[in-house]
């Protein structure tokens, strides 16, 4: 009972904050922009958030976070529109929606596919919001008891799990993390005041800005890669009608929505989880438990309902580790950590007690944002379809421009813009060598924290490294990280992991 009353009390604080006119406006702007970039293939939430971060300096922290969060979950809604109508993932997490969604569109059921995607996302969004509200406080309480050794081990576990659950070469991904950690070191060492890797450049004494890293590695590299491919895309231009589902279709979709929501809520919390992994897992589950799996890939409504619910639940659940532990489970959350530090809020378990209106306001805003998104995406679908017709040759110069203005405005200094050129080149090389850049960003954000906690833990233990194993919580986390690595290296499981990613 006490649990419920605190929950209601907390949500009350949240509603008070999120329902202010300014915050409603920024929430709307966020989800609108999220839908927009979700619909457009070739730009995702990551570069968009990086682009807008400098601009949020001037906003109050709550409004800034509400808007940036809206972009992330809004993009999950928008991405499904493109997947269904163009057979292209507008958002990487909508890859699986293409399989059955596009088939439904070809059968003249585009409207129904869009509806079920929106309804599923909405249900998932509501549930995930409640779950964050319920589980964040106890988790934060546990985290408050963590010492430096526990934090260090938690970060190791988080980083390892993030690469194990991602696709691609494990070894390359670990290398990218370490490179990220190294880049995070650049700047003034807090303990000795020594300048590390700054080459006497004054702009580097505060470290490399994470906006410049994200912008170069993700936005610029992506644009260059897109321009290197010359094939044209086809747009499903027929008018979208028939948004209403029949009762039978709804009954067919609802269990898939609920399963997707559950899967996404759990997988989103895991490091490396989030929208993409949840969608994949949901599709696999739906196909496995279906009475007639052969319908999948030919326009099965569950194949749209499940993954679309899962990716939305997953994207929202990934806020939990970020908000309670201060550990970002994926690259977008790494940027959110950056956004909080810009406003001098140190992400971690203390946020909930030191800034309750920020914490609860953000959570409630997600629910409000989901309501807005249903309205934005179903009745206004025609506008988004038109947007799909804007050719890429007009789109990318505009994206470049906003990125440049964004980087320039961080410090009113062109040095940051030149840095993005360096990271753009690096990002392009990484794509060509099949080195996933997302782990680098995670390492980059966690680098300074990891070194600090390593130092403190070993200072407390007088240089005895066994402290990481002998302290029970820390030991368990390191053991879990080791087991994850072993599992992945074991030959037969490795083969199955590769198959699982190939199948999609």
């Amino acid at each position, binding site marked *: 009972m006490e649990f419920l009353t605190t929950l209601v009390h907390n949500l009350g604080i949240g509603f008070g904050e999120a329902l202010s006119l300014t915050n409603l406006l920024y929430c709307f702007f966020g989800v609108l922009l999220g839908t927009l970039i979700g619909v457009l293939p070739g730009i995702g939430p990551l570069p968009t958030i990086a682009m807008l971060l400098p601009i949020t300096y001037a906003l109050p922290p709550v409004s800034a976070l509400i808007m940036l969060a809206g972009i992330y979950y809004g993009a999950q809604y928008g991405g499904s529109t493109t997947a269904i109508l163009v057979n292209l993932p507008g958002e990487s997490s909508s890859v699986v929606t293409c399989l059955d969604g596009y088939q439904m569109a070809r059968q003249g059921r585009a409207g129904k596919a869009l509806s079920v995607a929106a309804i599923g996302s909405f249900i998932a969004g509501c549930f995930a919001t409640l779950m964050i509200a319920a589980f964040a406080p106890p988790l934060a309480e546990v985290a408050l008891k963590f010492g430096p050794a526990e934090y260090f081990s938690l970060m190791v576990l988080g980083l390892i799990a993030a690469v194990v659950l991602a696709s691609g070469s494990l*070894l390359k991904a670990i290398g990218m993390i*370490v490179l990220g950690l190294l880049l995070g070191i650049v700047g003034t060492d807090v303990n000795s005041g020594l300048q590390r890797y700054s080459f006497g450049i004054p702009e580097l004494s505060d470290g490399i800005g994470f906006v410049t890293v994200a912008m170069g590695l993700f936005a610029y590299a992506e644009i260059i890669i897109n321009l290197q491919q010359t094939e044209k895309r086809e747009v499903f231009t027929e008018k979208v009608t028939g948004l209403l589902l029949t009762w039978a279709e709804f009954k067919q979709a609802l269990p898939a929505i609920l399963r997707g929501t559950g899967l996404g809520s759990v997988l989103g919390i895991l490091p490396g989880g989030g929208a993409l992994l949840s969608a994949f897992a949901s599709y696999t589950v739906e196909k496995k438990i279906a009475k007639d799996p052969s319908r999948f890939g030919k326009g099965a409504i569950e194949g749209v309902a499940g993954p679309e619910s899962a990716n939305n639940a997953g994207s929202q659940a990934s806020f939990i580790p970020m908000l309670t532990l201060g550990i970002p489970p994926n690259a977008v959350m790494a940027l959110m950590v950056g956004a909080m530090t810009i406003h001098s809020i140190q992400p971690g378990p203390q946020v909930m007690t030191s800034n309750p209106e920020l914490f609860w306001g953000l959570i409630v805003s997600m629910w409000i944002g989901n309501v807005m998104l249903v309205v934005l995406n179903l009745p206004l679908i025609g506008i988004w379809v038109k947007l799909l017709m804007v050719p890429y040759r007009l789109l990318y110069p505009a994206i470049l*421009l906003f990125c440049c*203005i964004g980087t320039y405005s961080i410090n009113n200094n062109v040095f940051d813009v030149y840095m993005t050129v360096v990271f753009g080149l690096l990002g392009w*090389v990484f794509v060509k060598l099949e080195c996933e850049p997302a782990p680098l960003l995670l390492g980059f954000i966690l680098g300074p924290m990891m070194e600090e906690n390593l130092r403190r833990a070993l200072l407390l233990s007088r240089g005895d490294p066994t402290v990481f194993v002998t302290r029970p919580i820390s030991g368990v986390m390191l053991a879990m990280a080791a087991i994850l690595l072993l599992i992945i290296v074991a030959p037969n499981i490795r083969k199955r992991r590769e198959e699982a990613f190939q199948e999609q």
Partner: protein
Amino acid sequence: MSFIKNPKDFWAGMLYMAFGLAAILIAYNYPVGTAGRMGPGYFPRILGAIMIGIGVILALRGVRVAGARIAWRPLKPLVIVLASIALFALVAPYFGMVAATVVLVVVASTASHEFRWKEAIIASVLLAAFAVAAFGYGLNLQLPLWPAFLG
């Protein structure tokens, strides 16, 4: 391409080794300290060593296990996109945002295989107008809009 069987692994390994080596060499003069009292050079050296280790394994894998070739080309988009961003940085402080926007958009547009002069120039003017309205006046960012010698 004689002994390199998987260029993606091989060159990724070389790149990692180079980063690791650079990290250690640059940190050569940073005090290391002891595990109990870590100096600023301790953590970078560990990371550099891991980097080199992973690089060596990757490079070895690259000469032993076969894999796909790297499609570097066409290089035109790479050069033009990066050059247009650098040009923006070069132009903006002296000639202002408006001029920098026009330069960036027109130069960047030439990277597309569907490039058209007229369209690119119109787009650049519209985007410059939007940038002035939204960022200059709307969000009131402290950026020079017009050439410094005119203000």
